[in-house]
């Protein structure tokens, strides 16, 4: 009977030790993000509002283009041979960009930065289609990258996909 109680007592004593309690109560890394996050909030609202406004403007311009699925679009999406083509269904990238510019960005920044091929986000037959969920996530990430460069690096394209991803789909924790 006594032997049954003693381990319990020992366990209680171990957990009641102040050192033990302290470690449990204070997660070490989160403090930094919490501390940094709090003051950044007020300034945060404006950039996101701008971002959505930008995205909205592009979205307003693009639905017509996105709705019509004409054959030249397919070529442009897959190969990017026709340099003068207008890309379809742009929601984050500037509407002024040509298909060639979009392709260049996708290949040299996004695909290289994440170490993936086009099919990670795109449907092979229709690059403008949004049916792959990863494409939606990628849009948010591009908008995030743009926001970082605008707000913290004086609009200079300092941060790219590679800065965090380091050639991998999921950045190291």
């Amino acid at each position, binding site marked *: 009977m006594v*032997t049954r109680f003693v381990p319990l007592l020992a366990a209680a004593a171990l957990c009641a030790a102040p050192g033990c309690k*302290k470690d449990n109560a204070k997660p070490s890394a989160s403090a930094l993000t919490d501390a940094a996050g709090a003051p950044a909030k007020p300034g945060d609202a404006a950039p996101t509002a701008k971002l959505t406004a930008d995205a909205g403007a592009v979205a307003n311009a693009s639905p017509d283009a996105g709705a019509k699925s004409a054959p030249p679009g397919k070529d442009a999406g897959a190969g990017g041979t026709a340099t003068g083509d207008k890309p379809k269904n742009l929601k984050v990238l500037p509407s002024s960009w040509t298909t060639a510019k979009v392709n260049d960005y996708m290949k040299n920044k996004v695909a290289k930065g994440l170490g993936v091929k086009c099919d990670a986000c795109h449907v092979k037959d229709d690059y403008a289609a949004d049916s792959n969920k990863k494409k939606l996530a990628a849009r948010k990430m591009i908008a995030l990258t743009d926001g970082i460069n605008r707000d913290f690096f004086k609009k200079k394209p300092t941060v790219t996909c590679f800065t965090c991803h380091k050639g991998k789909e999921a*950045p190291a924790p």
Partner: protein
Amino acid sequence: MTTTRSILLVCALAAFAWATALFAPRPTASAAPGKNLKVYPAGTDTAEIKKDMKLVSKALGVQCDFCHDLDDFSKDDIDKKNIARGMMKMVGSINGKLKKDGFKAEVKCMTCHAGSEKPKS
């Protein structure tokens, strides 16, 4: 025989735990709130800040004197300290946006810097 031994052992363990608890150093009790805080909330404990700063120095591969005057850590005379403040604000902003966008991942200094003062872009 074995039961008495185990009882003794457990009692000894309990006594040891109690003793270590009594004599363990208490960082928060002796520490004071940090001075000249501009990104951390006012009154944040020095011990807590120090813990974070160790992570910062590891992520950038630098020592304290990279940003701090070693005679007075709260001084702002080294420009890099203000850059670091901006970076900490940026990390907070990025993590806020990531959370808002439904991503579970968070960034910290190491995510971009990966052990070097200047991240490869």
